[in-house]
C-alpha cells in the first residue's frame, strides 16, 4: 500500500496525493484512505474535542450524574484512542481497536452504575460524529465525493463503536438482573423453625421448576439438620397454582414423608382451592389446613405439645398457695 509511506502532513496535501495515486477501487481497501480522516482528526483534535463537548452539553449532558472534568478527560482519551486505532484498521473487531473497545466497555459500565440510560451512553460516542463531520467538511471542501466517502467511513466506525457501547451497557444490566434473580431465589426460600421439631416454609412468589428444586432441597436438608418431625409448607404468598406447581408441591411433600417427617400444606386461598379442583389435581394424600396457625396447632399436637392460656396454668398454683 502506498499510503503507509506517506509522511505526515496536512490533510489536504495527503488527499491530493492520494487522489492522484489511487483509482476509485482502492478507496475501499487502502490504508491511505483511513489515514485521510485520521489525519483530519489529528490536525483538528482540539477543535473537534471542544465541538464534541459543546455537542454533548446541548444534547446529552447529565450534569447531575457526571462532572465536566471527568467528561472532558474521557472525551480526550477516547478521541486519542480513536485516532490511533483508525490509523491502523477499519475493523473495530481488529487488534488495533482492542484498547478503544476496552476503554468504551469501562465507560459503559461506569455510566450504567452512575444511572445513565443506554441511549445516553451511546450518545456519548455518537455525538462525536458532528464535530468530525465539520472538520472533514472544512478540510475537504474541494472534493465533495471524497467528503461523502470519508463521512461514511467515520460514521460507520462510530456507529459500530456506539453499538458496542450499548451492547456492553445492556449486557451489564442483564448481569445485574441475573444476579438479582439468583439472590431472590436464595432469599425467597427461607426455612424457619417454629418449635423444636416443627419447621415452616413460607413460600412467596411464583413457583417454577428451578425454584421448587431449591425449595425441596432446602426443606429436606433443614429436616435432617434440625431433626424435625413436622414441616409446614405455607403457600399464602403463591399467586397461582397450576398443575406443574401442584406436582412440585406433591413431590416435595412425598419426599419429606419418605424421610420420616409429616408435611402439612397451609394457606390455600379460596381461588386456589377452586383452581386445584377444576384442574383435577388430587391432593387426597396431603394434609391441608386453611391457615398456618391451624397447621401449627396440629403440628404441636403431633410433637406432643399444646398451647394453653396462662390463666388456666396460674389458677392451680394460687390454690396451692
Amino acid at each position, binding site marked *: 500500500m502506498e499510503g503507509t509511506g506517506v509522511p505526515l502532513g496536512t490533510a489536504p496535501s495527503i488527499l491530493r496525493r492520494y487522489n492522484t495515486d489511487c483509482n476509485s477501487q482502492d478507496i475501499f481497501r487502502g490504508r491511505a484512505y483511513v489515514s485521510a480522516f485520521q489525519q483530519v482528526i489529528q490536525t483538528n483534535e482540539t477543535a473537534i474535542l471542544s465541538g464534541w463537548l459543546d455537542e454533548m452539553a446541548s444534547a446529552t449532558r447529565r450534569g447531575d450524574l457526571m462532572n465536566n472534568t471527568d467528561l472532558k478527560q474521557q472525551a480526550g482519551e477516547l478521541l486519542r484512542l480513536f485516532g490511533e486505532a483508525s490509523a491502523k484498521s477499519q475493523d473495530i473487531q481488529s487488534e488495533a481497536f482492542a484498547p478503544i473497545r476496552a476503554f468504551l466497555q469501562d465507560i459503559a459500565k461506569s455510566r450504567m452504575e452512575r444511572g445513565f440510560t443506554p441511549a445516553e451512553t451511546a450518545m456519548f460516542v455518537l455525538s462525536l460524529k458532528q464535530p468530525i463531520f465539520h472538520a472533514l467538511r472544512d478540510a475537504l471542501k474541494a472534493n465533495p465525493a471524497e467528503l461523502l466517502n470519508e463521512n461514511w467511513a467515520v460514521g460507520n466506525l462510530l456507529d459500530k463503536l456506539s453499538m458496542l457501547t450499548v451492547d456492553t451497557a445492556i449486557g451489564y444490566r442483564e448481569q445485574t438482573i441475573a444476579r438479582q434473580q439468583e439472590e431472590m431465589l436464595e432469599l425467597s426460600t427461607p426455612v424457619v423453625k417454629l418449635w423444636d421439631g416443627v419447621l415452616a416454609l413460607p413460600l412467596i412468589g411464583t413457583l417454577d421448576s428451578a425454584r421448587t428444586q431449591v425449595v*425441596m*432441597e432446602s426443606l*429436606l*436438608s433443614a*429436616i*435432617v439438620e434440625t*431433626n*424435625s*418431625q413436622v414441616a409446614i409448607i405455607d403457600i399464602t404468598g403463591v399467586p397461582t397454582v397450576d398443575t406443574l406447581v401442584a406436582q412440585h408441591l406433591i*413431590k416435595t411433600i*412425598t*419426599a*419429606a*414423608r*419418605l*424421610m*420420616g*417427617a409429616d408435611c402439612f400444606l397451609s394457606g390455600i386461598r379460596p381461588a386456589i382451592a377452586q383452581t386445584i379442583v377444576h384442574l383435577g389435581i388430587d391432593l387426597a394424600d396431603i394434609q391441608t389446613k386453611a391457615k398456618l396457625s391451624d397447621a401449627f396447632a396440629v403440628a404441636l399436637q403431633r410433637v406432643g405439645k399444646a398451647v394453653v392460656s396462662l390463666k388456666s396454668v396460674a389458677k392451680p398454683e394460687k390454690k396451692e398457695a
Partner: protein
Amino acid sequence: MDRIPILKVGECLLVTIQVDMHDELAMTLQQDLTSQISKYASRGVLIDISSLEIVDSFIGRMLANIAAMSRVLDAQTVLTGMQPAVAITLVELGMSLPGIKTALNVERGMQLLAEYIGENRELEEADGVEV
C-alpha cells in the same frame, strides 16, 4: 458372600444397611428377612438406610416388596434415616412407597414400632374381651 446382618430386638427386627446395595445383596436380604420374621414371629421391621447414598428403581422396588411381604407376615415396616438426595431420587422415579412408615432416625423408628405394636395388642385384647 456378603450378607446384611439382621438383629433381633425384642419383637422387632433391626436391619441397618451400611454398604452400597447391589441387586444380589438386596435379594439375599429379602429372603433372610422373610425367613427371620416367620422364625421369630416378629411384629415389626426397622430398616435404617442412613448410610445409603445411591438408590435406583430396583432398590426402591425391593424396599416396597419387603414392606409388602412383612405385612403379609403380620409385621410393620419402618424405614428410617433416608437422605434428602435419596428421597428426591425416589420421588422423581415415581416411587412414593405408600405402604411404608418412615421416621427420621432409628430412635424415632423404634418409638413408632413400639406404639404400633402396643396399639395392636390393645386391639387384640379388646377383641378377646368382646368374644
